[in-house]
C-alpha cells in the first residue's frame, strides 16, 4: 500500500513540477525536464501543508492530498490547453527521451553510483530519522502534526530550552507529514527522490562539458564525499538546500551565457525561483542570494539593458527568495508560533573584524583542509585545488563559465564566514560544516569547466572517434579508389570539440 501511495505521490510531484517548469517556457532535454519536474514537485509539496497551516486549515489526509491533487491540476491547465490546441502527440514529443545510447565505459560507473544510490535509498526507507536536529524539532513536530492535525501542536507546550530546531523551515516538517500520511512510518523517502534527481541531472549536465569517462569520474568523487553522502539518507535541511541553491546558480549562469532570448529570460527567472526554494529551506541563503547581485548587475550593464528593465527584472528575480524568507521566518515564526524567536537577539554583540578573519581561517583549517576535511569531503576539494592551481599556473586564464563557478565558490566561502561571524548560533562544526555542502556542486562545475580537463576530454573524444573514422576512411578509400573522392573529415564530435 505505501508503495502505491509513493507511486501516486511521484506522479503528483512530476506533474506539478512539470506544470511549474512550463511556466518558464524552458526548452530542456528530457532528462532535465523529468529531474527538474520531480525536484520542483517535491519543493511545491513541501509548501502545501505549510500553506494550509497559514490559513488554519486542519492538516488531514483529505486536505493534504486534496491540496496536492488540486495544485497539480491547476498548474497543468496551461499544458492541457496546449494539448487541446496542438494535440497530445506534439506535447508528448517534448517529453520523449532520445534514443538511449549506452556506451560500454559508462556501465561500470553506473554500477558503482547505482550501488551507492541503492544503499542510500534502502537506509532512507528502512531506518527511522536519527539526526538530533531533526528529532528535536521538525520530525517531532511532523509526528504530532499527523496526530493532532496542526503544525502548531502540543510539541510547543513542552520545555524547548535546549533546542531552536522548532523554528526552522516548515520544508522538512511538511514533507515528513505528507510521507507519514502516505504510509511511511519514518517519512524520509522523499529525500531519495532529491538525491536520485540530482545525480541524474549532474551526470547529464557534466557530459555536456566533458567526455563521459571524465564526467562520471567526477560524479563518482562527488557522490562519494562522505558527509554529504550520509545526508542522502539522513533528513535535514542542508542536502536539499545544496541541491536547489546549485540549480539556481546553474540556471542563473546559463541565462547569462545565452543570448537575450525568451530562453535566457526563462532561465533567469527560473534561477530566481530555485534560489527562493533554497531560501525557504535555509533562511540564511537569502544573504548568499543577494551576494550574486553585483555580477548580475555587471552582466545586465554589459548587455546595455535599460535601468528600468534591470530594476524590474532583478526585483522579480529576488521576489521568490524574499517570499521564501518572509513567509516561514517573519510571518510564521513571529506571528503563528506560540514561542517567538527574536533573530535580532542572535546577532553577535561583539562584531570585531579579527573575529571575522578568525572564522575564515577556521573554515579553511578545520573544514576545508587537514585530516577532518578527508572525513567530510574525501579528496574532492583537494582535487579541485590541484586542478585550479594547474589551470592558473599553466594556462593563466579561466573560461567564462569557470570564472562564474569560481566566483560562486568565493561568495559562498565569504558569505558563510560572514554569517557565522554575525550569528554565533551558526557554529563551525555543525551548521557551517553542513552549509558547506553547497560548495561541492559549485566545485564540481568549476572542474567541468576547467580547461585542462577540457583538453584532456577533447583528446579522449578524438582518440575514441579516430578509430572508427580511420576504419571508415580506409574502407572508403578502398571502395572509392577509382573515383578518387576525398576522405571523410577527421573532426571531433560537437561534444568533444573545444568550446570557443
Amino acid at each position: 500500500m505505501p508503495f502505491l501511495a509513493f507511486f501516486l505521490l511521484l506522479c503528483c510531484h512530476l506533474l506539478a513540477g512539470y506544470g511549474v517548469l512550463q511556466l518558464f517556457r524552458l526548452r530542456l532535454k528530457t532528462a532535465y525536464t523529468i529531474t527538474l519536474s520531480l525536484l520542483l514537485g517535491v519543493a511545491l509539496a513541501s509548501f502545501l501543508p505549510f500553506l494550509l497551516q497559514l490559513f488554519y486549515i486542519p492538516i488531514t489526509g483529505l486536505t493534504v492530498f486534496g491540496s496536492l491533487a488540486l495544485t497539480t491540476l491547476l498548474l497543468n491547465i496551461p499544458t492541457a490547453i496546449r494539448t487541446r490546441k496542438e494535440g497530445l502527440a506534439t506535447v508528448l514529443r517534448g517529453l520523449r527521451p532520445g534514443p538511449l545510447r549506452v556506451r560500454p565505459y559508462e556501465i561500470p560507473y553506473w554500477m558503482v553510483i547505482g550501488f551507492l544510490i541503492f544503499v542510500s535509498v534502502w537506509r532512507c526507507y528502512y531506518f527511522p530519522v536519527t539526526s538530533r536536529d531533526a528529532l528535536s524539532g521538525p520530525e517531532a513536530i511532523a509526528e504530532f502534526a499527523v496526530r493532532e492535525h496542526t503544525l502548531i501542536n502540543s510539541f510547543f507546550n513542552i520545555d524547548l530550552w535546549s533546542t531552536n530546531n522548532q523554528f526552522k523551515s516548515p520544508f522538512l516538517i511538511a514533507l515528513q507529514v505528507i510521507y507519514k500520511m502516505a504510509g511511511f512510518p519514518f517519512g524520509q523517502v522523499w529525500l531519495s527522490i532529491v538525491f536520485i534527481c540530482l545525480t541524474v541531472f549532474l551526470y547529464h549536465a557534466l557530459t555536456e562539458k566533458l567526455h563521459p569517462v571524465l564526467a562520471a569520474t567526477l560524479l563518482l568523487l562527488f557522490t562519494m564525499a562522505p558527509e554529504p553522502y550520509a545526508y542522502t539518507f539522513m533528513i535535514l535541511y542542508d542536502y536539499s538546500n545544496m541541491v536547489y541553491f546549485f540549480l539556481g546558480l546553474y540556471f542563473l549562469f546559463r541565462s547569462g551565457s545565452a543570448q537575450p532570448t525568451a530562453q535566457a529570460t526563462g532561465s533567469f527567472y527560473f534561477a530566481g525561483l530555485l534560489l527562493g526554494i533554497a531560501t525557504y529551506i535555509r533562511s540564511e541563503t537569502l544573504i548568499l542570494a543577494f551576494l550574486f547581485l553585483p555580477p548580475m548587475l555587471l552582466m545586465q550593464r554589459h548587455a546595455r539593458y535599460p535601468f528600468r528593465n534591470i530594476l524590474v527584472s532583478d526585483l522579480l528575480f529576488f521576489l521568490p527568495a524574499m517570499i521564501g524568507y518572509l513567509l516561514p521566518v517573519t510571518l510564521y515564526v513571529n506571528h503563528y508560533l506560540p514561542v517567538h524567536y527574536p533573530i535580532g537577539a542572535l546577532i553577535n554583540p561583539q562584531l570585531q573584524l579579527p573575529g571575522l578573519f578568525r572564522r575564515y581561517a577556521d573554515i579553511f583549517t578545520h573544514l576545508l583542509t587537514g585530516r577532518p576535511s578527508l572525513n567530510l569531503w574525501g579528496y574532492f576539494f583537494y582535487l579541485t585545488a590541484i586542478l585550479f592551481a594547474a589551470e592558473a599556473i599553466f594556462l593563466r586564464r579561466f573560461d567564462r563559465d569557470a570564472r562564474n563557478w569560481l566566483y560562486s565558490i568565493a561568495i559562498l566561502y565569504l558569505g558563510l564566514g560572514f554569517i557565522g561571524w554575525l550569528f554565533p548560533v551558526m557554529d563551525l562544526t555543525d551548521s557551517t560544516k553542513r552549509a558547506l555542502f553547497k560548495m561541492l556542486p559549485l566545485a564540481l562545475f568549476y572542474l567541468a569547466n576547467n580547461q585542462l580537463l577540457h583538453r584532456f576530454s577533447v583528446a579522449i573524444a578524438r582518440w575514441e572517434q579516430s578509430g572508427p573514422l580511420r576504419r571508415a576512411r580506409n574502407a572508403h578509400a578502398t571502395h572509392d579508389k577509382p573515383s578518387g573522392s576525398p576522405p571523410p573529415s577527421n573532426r571531433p564530435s560537437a561534444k568533444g570539440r573545444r568550446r570557443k
Partner: protein
Amino acid sequence: MRQFLLTVAAFATICLVLNTGYNKEWFRTKPSEYWADFWKEKNDTASADALKKERYGIMYSISLKVKEVVEKRKIADPVILFEPNSYYRDSLHIYPKFRAPEPAVFYYYTGLEGVWTNSRDVTRANYLVRISGKGVVLEEIRSPSQLQQILDRYKKYPPIL
C-alpha cells in the same frame, strides 16, 4: 576496440578511486558495511518500534519503560526529571554511551513531558529517572523540598546535550 580500452580504463579508474587512501577506508566501513546490513535487514519483519529501539539505543527503551510505568500507575500529569548528562560523564562515567534525552526528544519518543535540572518548568517535576549501579529507577518526587534536595545534589553538574 577503443571503446573496450576506455571501458578497461573506466574500471581501472574506479578501482583507483575506491582504493585510494581514505576512500578505501570509507567505502569499506560505510557503503560496503551498509550493503552487508541490507542482506540481513531485507528479510527482517521488525516493526517500526523495534527498529526505533535498535536505532535509538538504550535511552529509547528506558523512555518507553517510563511511559509504560506512567500508564500503569495512571499518573495524571507526569513531568519526568532527568539527571544531567555531565553527571553521567563526570561521576558515573557512562557518557556518551548513555545519555539522557533532551526534553524535546523525550516528548517525541513518548509523548510525555520531560525536564532537565535547569528547565524553566523544573518545579513541576514529579518523577525522577535515576540511574545507579543497580539499574534504572523511576522515583516519585513527593514534595517541593525533596525536589530541591535533588536539584541541589546535581547543582555542580550543568546539563549538557
